């Protein structure tokens, strides 16, 4: 029988520290990937994810079981990401590129276009203000609902909707300006 999240939380609270490993195993992928998309590189994603799980463990007594554990875990993680992003010096941070290897269904040309698209979007979302990137990642990358995003960010429905609207607008403007830059330097007649 698989233990529920709250059963594991209760075991931890009763002193069984090793039980927490089950929760790490269960949610590490979502936490690490969210941190990766927020921070833009693996090294900081790992630091933030580790710290997030340690903080979760240390504040398990504050976990409210009315919410899903993952919602609370994402709240802790995104708050830590935003804190780290505020502290860091942007110009020194690398952006790791990650490309999906599809199972040979794409032609080399399709594969190339997909990689270029992924790189373009990845770079563009890293240019957005952190607070806006957070909403885009939660909604469009983690596929969460408005309600889940409200629970994670503590914002109202109006703010969630407005920030998503504004984030998409900024993403579009960033991509259009890149497109214009590219056209400016393109060889005439070789578009």
């Amino acid at each position: 029988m698989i233990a529920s999240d709250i059963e594991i939380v209760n075991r931890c609270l009763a002193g069984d520290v090793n039980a927490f490993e089950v929760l790490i195993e269960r949610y590490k992928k979502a936490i690490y990937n969210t941190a990766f998309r927020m921070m833009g590189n693996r090294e900081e994603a790992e630091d933030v994810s580790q710290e997030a799980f340690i903080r979760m463990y240390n504040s398990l007594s504050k976990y409210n079981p009315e919410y899903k554990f993952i919602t609370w875990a994402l709240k802790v993680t995104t708050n830590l990401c935003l804190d780290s992003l505020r502290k860091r010096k942007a110009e020194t941070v690398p952006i790791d590129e990650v490309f999906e290897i599809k199972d040979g269904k794409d032609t080399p040309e399709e594969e190339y276009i997909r990689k270029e698209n992924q790189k373009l979007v990845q770079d563009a979302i890293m240019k957005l203000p952190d607070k806006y990137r957070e909403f885009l990642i939660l909604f469009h990358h983690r596929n969460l609902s408005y309600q889940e995003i409200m629970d994670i960010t503590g914002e109202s429905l109006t703010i969630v909707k407005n920030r998503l609207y504004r984030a998409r607008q900024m993403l579009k403007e960033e991509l259009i300006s890149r497109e214009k830059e590219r056209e400016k330097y393109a060889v005439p007649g070789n578009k």
Partner: protein
Amino acid sequence: MQCQEINSLVMKYFDGNISELEREMIIRHNEKCNRCAEEFEILRNAIDTLEELPEIEVPAGFESRVMEGIISRRA
């Protein structure tokens, strides 16, 4: 319909909260307005890509490092 109004519908489209009629309005407007059509394609491509960005593997030994951190801070 004005471009500004279409832009609001486009955002509803990406919220996944749009009626068939509203979708038709975007299509009809974009057939006549190159700028909106181009911007819609740029954003659609970006959102599709964002939704499909690959999940990456968590580094090996991650759990152990977290557990060590928990235990060392308890000590």
